[in-house]
């Protein structure tokens, strides 16, 4: 019997391999879509780049925290 690149066991396990492959591809697609949805729901997100910026400075007339 010659050495075959495709053993008969590969044929027998094809449904498992193809099935699992599809499940994994679907899972990746699902996590990606979920990320898009979640990020869009997050509202405006501003990256911090270590530069002073008006939107980051506290309000002047913000009530001071009173400590007892």
């Amino acid at each position, binding site marked *: 019997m010659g050495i075959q690149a495709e053993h008969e066991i590969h044929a027998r396990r094809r449904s*498992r391999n193809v099935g699992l492959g599809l499940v994994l591809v679907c899972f990746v697609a699902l996590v990606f879509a979920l990320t898009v949805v979640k990020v869009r729901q997050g509202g405006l997100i501003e990256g911090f780049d270590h530069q002073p910026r008006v939107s980051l400075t506290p309000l002047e007339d913000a009530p001071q925290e009173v400590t007892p």
Partner: protein
Amino acid sequence: MADINAYEHTPEAQFGDYVALLKPRVMSLVVFTAFVGLWVAPGSVHPFIGFCSVLFIALGGGASGALNMWYDRDIDAIMTRTQSRPIPSGRVEPSEALGVGIVLSVISVMMLGLVANWFAAGFLAFTIFFYAVVYTVWLKRWTPQNIVIGGAAGAFPPMIGWACVTGGISIESLLMFALVFFWTPPHFWALALFMKEDYHNAGVPMLTVTHGRRSARRHIFAYTLVLAPFAIWLGLTSVGGPLYMAVAVVLNAMFIHGGWKILKRQEEQAIADGYSVEKRVFKLSLIYLFVHFFALLVQGWMGGW
């Protein structure tokens, strides 16, 4: 001659066998009731978040099914109904089923936590634990009330769906739980009356055998009486409405009537006509649950009171 065809005679597990481990038919009930729970809950979720929530609740339910098949493989091998399942038929190794069950449990709980919220995820984890450990390992082989307590596992999905949106529990979700919970015993005992005593022979105590068929008939009727007020009460909450109420009144009257007919029958009569009444009540019980949840769905879409 030593060759590489050592696997020749072991039946090869196909992809479908792993799907069968997840009990797709039970999953369909989980999908439906969880979806209704999510749909009727106050507030809104993004449709894709809702889809993913139901998907992972169903996956968690499937994972507990695989754990159940792993633990019950000895019983499944005895009963004719379950002999063709993946493990007793030798296509899937018990350890594989255990692995699939545990891995999918973890994935489904983690993903539900990330998709919806961690309360719903904890609830799903509890449900899996309840079905796989409390029901399958502790109660199923120990008490003929196994169906009553095990029914709780099947009753959690609408509560989890509700929790995905609201992040908590409320009277509506508790009443949806009660609807499935009190429905389960009459549903299964009606089935047990006309089924062979397979289960009992396999070592699972069944009410029809341990306490007799007379007692099972009384139990069925009693549970239809207990069930009705909860079904009606659900109609008075924020998820109810005229349509649900009309449906609930009719179906509960029919179910109680069916329970009454089962109670009044003698075993000889039942044998004589091939358990026709019991079979009809069993079919009615399937319609009962489906239509109740479907009415909630439509009512949620129409708006309630």
